[in-house]
């Protein structure tokens, strides 16, 4: 499979080479440099990551007329999580017609729930169609970015030793990017193969092997049925069972695809219907978890149809309200578990002794390979350790008590910086692309406000002044109080341990409302929630050259705000 993918990629590359001629070759040669970032380059915007968030940001930037930006990608291809996760059976839980950009319709989706390869190819095509390739620097992992309060810009250092400065940073690294592997005693002594679902080793042949899968989350329930027919014996370690709903997956017929191509309105209608249904579900999750009992009975019946063994049924029945942990969709998970070569261990993995795995309840299993389906660092995003704010402390330090951001996007102490899919933006039931696009509206408005505030005034001698916007701590607090208040009644806080909750049990990942509401609250950047930082007139020039003895503007407070608002209004009227 890996070889096939490689071949396909190679032929794709060849096609590009052929089609794009000159421009493409130039890009390639630049991409082949250690990490494609020259020393001392300055850009207006640096986007980190080239998954849905990063590519979407790039498209929206170009639409807003901003072309002075780079997209930094640590891998050698776009796709983000859809590039990394190549495990067998990998697919999306949201119908493809909703799980795609509104501005890049794809009438050709092959299935209701398309697989990883189709989603990855869709993102490749987005990168080509929107002319994003010249902006992307591959093999360019950001090591550190720090805010320079004097020059009012971010300095980014990359793993290859490159350095660049940017006025504005969009961190689109995503919550599902850094694999989380639990610290299991004795794992280093294990002789067999070990890998995480997001780093699937396609060269390792599982046929006839004894395989352990750790975890029963969204990745695992897709892996298990995909590898079960091949492996000799499959042992599944489960700490907590998940609610699994039937998956209404089917091939999208040629007729539908033809119709979607010829009459785009039908595609738009399809998306609208998918979206509306999910919007209507939200209030049950967020306000009336007691209504979800019916859904539980549905999921229960779904399980009982495939699993006849009462003992297995008992193990697979969750004891928490459906929706509290992520609801999983699968038609073949339960039938796979009922197969004779699968054993379900109703307990977490405690330790590894040689090639024997020992569960917390003492049961043992000897295996040849361990697959960790243990998810990602979601509530402790590793990128936060690499972002240094105005006070020299990292974002991770600021967030040591849990992530906190304003409108899911910006963090106090981190001017001109925003996170795509930041704190409290996740969804339990709908497409994250909707959230991403809402945040991109916020990003475009952020840049627009920076432009307006930085426009040269009468005293500036026609030179634009550098401006930075930083969320006020009060505004961040107020926003999070509001979000947590809404969260209190929701199903996510109904008493279960999930990856939505951080170490303190606070839900810092889910947006407790509809995507429409989120779109509304991120429609524009409200200046009253921000401090304006300015370089003094004539201090720094646009490229942050030497000689800028800038200081922070007059102490944050009323005066700064009034000026900001006044000059904003002036910009509007003019």
């Amino acid at each position, binding site marked *: 499979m890996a070889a096939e993918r490689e071949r396909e990629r190679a032929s794709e590359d060849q096609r590009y080479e052929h*089609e*794009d*001629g*000159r*421009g*493409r070759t130039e890009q390639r040669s630049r991409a082949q440099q250690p990490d494609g970032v020259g020393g001392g380059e300055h850009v207006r915007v640096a986007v980190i990551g080239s998954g849905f968030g990063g590519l979407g940001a790039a*498209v929206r*930037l*170009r*639409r*807003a*007329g*901003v*072309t*002075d930006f780079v997209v930094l990608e640590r891998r050698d291809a776009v796709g983000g999580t859809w590039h990394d996760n190549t495990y067998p059976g990998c697919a999306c839980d949201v119908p493809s017609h909703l799980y795609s950009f509104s*501005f*890049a*319709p794809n009438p050709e989706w092959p299935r209701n729930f398309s697989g990883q390869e189709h989603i990855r190819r869709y993102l490749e095509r987005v990168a*080509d*169609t*929107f*002319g994003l*390739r*010249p902006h992307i620097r591959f093999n360019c992992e950001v090591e550190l970015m720090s805010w320079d309060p004097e020059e009012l810009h971010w300095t980014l250092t990359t793993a290859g030793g490159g350095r660049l400065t940017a006025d504005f940073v969009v961190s689109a690294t995503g919550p599902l990017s850094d694999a989380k592997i639990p610290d299991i005693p004795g794992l280093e002594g294990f002789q067999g193969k070990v890998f995480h679902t997001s780093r699937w080793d396609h060269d390792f042949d599982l046929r006839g092997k004894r395989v352990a899968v750790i975890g029963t989350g969204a990745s695992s329930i897709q892996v298990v049925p995909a590898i079960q027919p091949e492996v000799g014996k499959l042992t599944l370690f489960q700490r907590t069972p998940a609610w699994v709903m039937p998956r209404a997956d089917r091939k999208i017929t040629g007729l539908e695809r033809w119709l979607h191509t010829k009459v785009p309105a039908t595609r738009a209608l399809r998306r609208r219907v998918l979206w509306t249904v999910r919007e209507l579900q939200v209030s049950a999750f967020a306000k009336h978890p007691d209504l979800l009992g019916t859904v539980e009975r549905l999921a229960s019946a779904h399980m009982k149809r495939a699993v006849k063994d009462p003992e297995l049924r008992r193990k697979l029945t969750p004891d928490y309200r459906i929706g509290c942990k992520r609801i999983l969709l699968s038609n073949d998970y339960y039938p796979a578990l009922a197969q004779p070569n699968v054993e379900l261990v109703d307990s977490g993995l405690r330790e590894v002794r040689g090639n024997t795995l020992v569960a917390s309840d003492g049961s043992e299993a000897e295996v040849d390979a361990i697959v960790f389906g243990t998810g990602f660092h979601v509530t402790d995003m590793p990128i936060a350790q690499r972002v240094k704010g105005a006070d020299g402390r990292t974002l991770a330090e600021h967030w040591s008590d849990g992530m906190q951001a304003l409108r899911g996007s910006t963090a106090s102490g981190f001017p001109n910086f925003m996170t795509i899919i930041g704190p409290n933006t996740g969804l339990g039931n709908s497409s994250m692309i909707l959230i991403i696009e809402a945040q991109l509206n916020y990003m475009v408005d952020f840049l*627009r406000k920076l*432009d*307006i505030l930085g*426009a*040269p005034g009468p005293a500036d001698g*026609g030179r*634009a002044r550098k401006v930075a916007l930083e969320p006020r701590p009060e505004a961040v607090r107020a926003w999070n109080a509001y979000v947590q208040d809404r969260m209190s009644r929701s199903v996510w806080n109904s008493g279960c341990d999930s990856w939505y909750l951080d170490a303190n049990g606070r839900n810092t990942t889910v947006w407790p409302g509809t995507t429409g509401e989120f779109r509304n609250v991120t429609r524009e950047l409200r200046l009253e929630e921000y401090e304006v930082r300015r370089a003094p007139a004539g201090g720094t020039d646009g490229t942050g050259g030497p000689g800028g003895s800038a200081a922070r503007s007059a102490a944050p407070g009323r005066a700064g705000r009034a000026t900001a608002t006044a000059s904003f209004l002036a910009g509007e009227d*003019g």
Partner: protein
Amino acid sequence: MAAAAAAPGAGPASTSAPRTAIGSAAGLAAGGAVPGYAPPRPTRELTVRSADGIRLFAEVYGDEADPAVVLVHGWTCSTAFWAPVVRELTAHGLRVVAYDQRGHGRSGTGTPYAYSPAVLADDLCAVLDAALHPGERAVVGGHSMGAATLVAAAGRRQLTERGAALLLCGAGVRSLAARARVLPLRSPRIRIPAQRLVLRSRAPLPPAARLTRRALARGAMGPAAGREQIDLAARLVRACPRWVRAGWGAVLDELDLAAKVPHLTMPTAVVAGTADLLTPPVHAREIARALPDCRDLHEWRGIGHMTPLERPEAVADVLRGLARDHLPHPDTRNGGRTVPATAADGAAVPAQHPAEAAQDWADPAREPAQAAQHPAEVRAAGPTAETADGEETL
């Protein structure tokens, strides 16, 4: 032009009496030889690859040794749009480079939903690099979406290195739908959404050619526009595929490049028609005020959106003036020095700073005073000037 002056009745039937009077006056003011509206014969054709691999079709007219003018056409037009201007310029010893914007004319279409201002800038930069001699600088002129192209390319290396001076005709960089007065609807609450719909419409043009002509003449051209001019415009618009029209229309609807204008650091002239309903002169005044080096703001009475079609000689004169002042080899070829002073020459007299001139742009009463800055236009100025544009200030 002569046609317009000779037969004012040939203009759109909706023109009121005073407008016609102004129109014919404008026609007379600009009067001269009948310009040819047929596409001129290029000396060289070339295909340019844009950053994303799309092929763009470009033409070069005139002698390769002459100083160059690059022309960028607007929405739903093509290189043919510049025909009369090209004739004027090449006759006066300038070389002209014109190209078909993406999706228009003979250029590749790409994906209309992926169109963006950045794409416009990419395409222009590719053409500047490919069509000009190494290291050569040129005067770059854009009309409507072509003017937006220049603004979108502000700060790009190619435009900074190649652009000696710029001309923006019928330009608008933001709030296009909100400020346009194309649809004769009084209430902005109805007019603005309706205009946005028109911008983004994929609907085919009405089959009745006369209807399209009428609508076009009313919406895009001044009351004095002659039959030949309207014919050419109608031909161009009809030739534009409707999905390309909708694709770029969506870009124009969302256009907001105001922040980029201050980055156009080269000497720039701005041209607007006072009867322009598509991009009323508020746009031009706003842009002129934001430009760091605005040399002239020309407002031509009774002229609509299609300035290069409606007054090709005057537009060519402005371009020639810019070429003479900012390109290394001034125009010394046949006839170049013998052409009588026209609008451009008059306007080359340093006017008051545009920023001052435009400070009261919302006040229509100020217009005649400002028009007096441009001698050639005084004759066309009338107290009954269209002031519709001044009302829409937001």
